[in-house]
Each structure stands twice: as structure tokens, then as C-alpha cells.
């Protein structure tokens, strides 16, 4: 790889760090919102009892909220390509003597960095709220899962950013696709045997389910359906597919 391509990746990454650092309100909102979920849902559902739930509800909820924070933040990065398209900056990048692959890699790394930062903050707060880490090995798998999760979501965002021309489409995707998938990811309630079978079917083809389940299994070591490494393998598969599709569509997109 030529030196200029590394520079390009660095520039794309640095640009996102600077923008993120300056968007104070976005940082605050992106941390506060999951905290609301954590506190309000955490306290609210603490008094309810779910069949087969081990430990306190907050232990169950925290990994789901971490996954949610990372996914939303990364998707935002992917979709922010739309901003660049709208404000013309994408042209400036596309006309530079650098490959589109470098642009995608730099952007993805930038998005993943900010998403991880937010995920880690929620993780630390969860620990402060009494969530316990199962093991050091588990923590490492948790971090790897978080990285893969953010790459997957950036890729997903890129696909839509390459295909859409305005932000209304993004809103529709969020409302009609991402929120339902989250509700069925076991982030908020366990996907137990007593659920209607069609709901269970959707849950098991839902990539977010494996991400939440993987994080939960590796971090807290309880309430998970599959072993964390199995989840990790499945997430890796989704990640490769999403990044591949995202890069493909982005490289084909016109300015």
C-alpha cells in the first residue's frame, strides 16, 4: 500500500475524531440516551420477573444497552456519508488521488473508534451500577465483540447511505427496521420458550440477537443462549458480509 493511502486513511479517521470532539451535544446525547434506558428500564423492570432470568435485571439489561449504543453510533457514521454527499465534501474526497477503499477503511475506523468510546463509557457505568465481569477472558471477548459490532453497523449504514439521497429514508429505516430488531434482540427481555414461535423465529435470524447474546455471555457469563465464541463466529460472518456489501455499494455510488 502506498504511503498516500495510509495518509488518506489517517485523514478520514482524524477528521471524524475532530468532528466528534467538537460535537459536544452529540457526545452528551449519545451517552445520556442509553443511560436513560439503563436507569429507567433498569429500575422499572427490576420489579417484574422474567421466567428463567438469572441475577438482577440490570445485569441482563446492561449488555443490551451497550450493544444499542454501539450500533446506533456506528450506523450514524455510515449514514453520515449522506451528509458529505449533501454538503459536497464527498466530491473533494472522491477526486483526490486515493482509492475508495482507503476512504472506506478510514471512515470505518473513525466510526468504530467513536462507537467503542461510547460503548466503553456505558460499560464503565454498568460496572459502577453493580454489573460484574465474569472473567478476564470474557472481557477480552466482550471487547472483540464490541469492535465487530461497530464494523458491522458502519457497513450497514454505508449500504443505506450509498443507496439513499436524503435523510427521510434514514428515519424510515431506523423506525421500521432497527427498533423492531432491537426489541427482538433480547436486549430488553429474554427470548424465552413462552414467546410466540414466529417472534422466536425472527429473533434467531436477527443479527442483533447474536450480538447482544454474545456480549451478555462474555461480559456477565449468565442468561446467554449460545456460548460467547459461537456468537462471535456468527457476528464475524455478519461483519464480513456487511462490510463487503457496504464497501461494494459505496464504491459504486455516484456523486
Amino acid at each position: 500500500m502506498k504511503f498516500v493511502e495510509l495518509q488518506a486513511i489517517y485523514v478520514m479517521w482524524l477528521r471524524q475524531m475532530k468532528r466528534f470532539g467538537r460535537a459536544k451535544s452529540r457526545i452528551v446525547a449519545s451517552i445520556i440516551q442509553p443511560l436513560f434506558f439503563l436507569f429507567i428500564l433498569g429500575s422499572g423492570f427490576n420489579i417484574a420477573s422474567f421466567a428463567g432470568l438469572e441475577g438482577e435485571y440490570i445485569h441482563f439489561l446492561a449488555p443490551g444497552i451497550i450493544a444499542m449504543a454501539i450500533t446506533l453510533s456506528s450506523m450514524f457514521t455510515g449514514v453520515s456519508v449522506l451528509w458529505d454527499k449533501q454538503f459536497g465534501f464527498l466530491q473533494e474526497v472522491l477526486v483526490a488521488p486515493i482509492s475508495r477503499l482507503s476512504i472506506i477503511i478510514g471512515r470505518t475506523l473513525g466510526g468504530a473508534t467513536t462507537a467503542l468510546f461510547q460503548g466503553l463509557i456505558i460499560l464503565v457505568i454498568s460496572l459502577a451500577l453493580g454489573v460484574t465481569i465474569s472473567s478476564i477472558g470474557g472481557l477480552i471477548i466482550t471487547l472483540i465483540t464490541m469492535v465487530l459490532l461497530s464494523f458491522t453497523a458502519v457497513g450497514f449504514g454505508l449500504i443505506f447511505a450509498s443507496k439513499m439521497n436524503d435523510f427521510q429514508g434514514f428515519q424510515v429505516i431506523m423506525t421500521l427496521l432497527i427498533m423492531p430488531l432491537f426489541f427482538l434482540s433480547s436486549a430488553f427481555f429474554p427470548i424465552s420458550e413462552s414467546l410466540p414461535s414466529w417472534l422466536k423465529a425472527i429473533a434467531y435470524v436477527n443479527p442483533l440477537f447474536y450480538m447482544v447474546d454474545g456480549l451478555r455471555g462474555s461480559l456477565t457469563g449468565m442468561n446467554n443462549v449460545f456460548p460467547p465464541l459461537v456468537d462471535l463466529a456468527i457476528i464475524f460472518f455478519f461483519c464480513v458480509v456487511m462490510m463487503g456489501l457496504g464497501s461494494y455499494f459505496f464504491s459504486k455510488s455516484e456523486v
Partner: protein
Amino acid sequence: MEIIKTEQLTKKFNGFTAVDHISFSVNKGEIFGFLGPNGAGKTTTIKMLTTLLYPTDGKATISGYDITKKRDDVRQNIGIVFQDPALDTELTGLENLDFHARMYGLDKEKRKSRVNEVLTLVDLQEKKNDLVKNYSGGMKRRLEIARGLMHYPTVLFLDEPTLGLDAQTRRAIWDYIKKMNKDEHTTIFLTTHYMDEADYLCDRVGIIDHGKILVIDTIDHLKSSVGNDVITLSCSNLVALRAKLQQEKWIKSTKEHDSFLTLGVQKGEEKIPRIFDIANTIDVRIQSINVRKPTLDDVFLYYTGRTIRDQEPENLLQKGTRRLHGRRDL
């Protein structure tokens, strides 16, 4: 030496021919302008020459590099100021320039000194650490020009460089363009639909309409092709008078638009009485008449049969809808 050379360059979009077999060349150090109404194919031509669009047919080279085969070499050799602003407004002016320089492979020393040079050229030294979103329209355009120059391009493309700017700012931008052409010996290819802009800046102008180049020449030659003087008149029977005047050998050209007749002649003030005489013989009453030096408006009218403004309202509407649909400018 030819910096830009095109042969039969063509771009079609779903059967619509935006650029129709154009051939021209731009020499080193010159300011060359494409003059034409909106939708004439100016931006499409720029997008092909800057590797953002593939031509449907024909070929073009920039500094000897083929635009389809040597894309990275072409990109390294060109600077562009797009019609729509292409700055990152959440970054400072300095960061915009520095990021650009990195993407073009300038080393640290060079980046530093070059940033200073171009900032001085466009008088933005004092604002370099401000976020671009706090810049005025004119400052943004100046920063874009500075950015376009960062990597020492052999040719700088300016797509409608003063679109949407007020009169005073336009004048200042023109002077910056002239200055960089002179100080940095940068060849400049610009598009515009403003006559005064082409007149003030360009050494040579190509008039483009419906994707075709109608004529390429120096401003002076273009003006004298119309006639040394232009007479514009309105009268009671335009058609009859025009038919009669067309038989006169001393009238170089006659064009009709709106309710006016435009004539290209030599020594215009001496011709006015003769025109009155001719009108009298066929009982046509002249309502108004004036004589003036030709402008590029007259040149445009001469070659296209209409003024550049005739097209404006319709095309502005089109542009508006294009913008709504996500800026898919041709």
C-alpha cells in the same frame, strides 16, 4: 504546450446527450472559459475532465495523461473548485487545507509552507483557525480556491466560481483568480454563464450550448466577429425591415430577439441615417435605436440566436428541482 486536450468528447445520460463530441485544447498558462447557459454541458465536461464521470465516447488528456486510463496521474495534476461548496464546515480552514495536502501526499515541511502560501494568496491568514461554518460565502469560496492550489496543480478547474456571490465579492474573487494565474502560472479552466466574468477573466472563450461548442476564440476576435458596432432597434414591422436590411452588404449580421432587431456593422453612428432611409422606403416606423460596442451578450446572441438570459428562468427551476433530488447535477 497543451495542458487540456479533448477529441470528440461525449457524455450521454440515458439517451440524453449532455456533451456532444466536443474537441478543444487549453494551452499552458492560459485562462480558458466555457461560456453557456445552465444545462449546456459545462459541469458535465468538468466532471469528465476531473475523472468524476466516465465519458461515453471520445478521449481527453490532462498534461498528457489520459482521463480514463491514468486517473490517479490526472487527479494529482488538477485542482478543482466545485460549483457547490465542498468544504468540511465542522473543521477549521487550516484543517481543510492540511487534510487536502495529506491526501495529495505532501510531506510535513511542504504542507506547512504551502498552507501559508495559499492562505496569504487569498488573504485568509487571520481566519485560518476559525471553523469554516463561521465563514462568509466569499471566504468559503476563497478557501476552496486556496485548497485547489495546495498540491501545485498544473490546471485548476473552476465551476461557476462566483455563482451566488454579491457584486463586490465577485470582483474580489476575480482578482484572486487573476493573481494566481499570474503568480503561480496555473492554467485555469473555468465555466460561467456570466458574460462579464468571461469578459474580465478569460484569454479565450468557448461558447457552449446544448452540449456543442459553437465557437472558440479570443474575446476580441469574438466581439469583432459580430461587427465593430452593434445597432439595436425596435420598429413597427420587424419582419419586413429585417428582410430588407438583409439585402444590404454593409450589415454583417442581423438577429431578431424579443421585439428587437440587432445589427452588426462598422462605424455604427454613420449607419443610423441609412437605416432610417431604408425603413422609410417600406413605410416602417422606427421606435427606438441605439449603437454601442459589442459585448459577449451580442456574441452569444450571434452564435446561438438568443440571449443567455432567455434561458434563465426555466433552467433555474430545473436546477432547483435537481437540488431537491440530492444534487445530481449533470
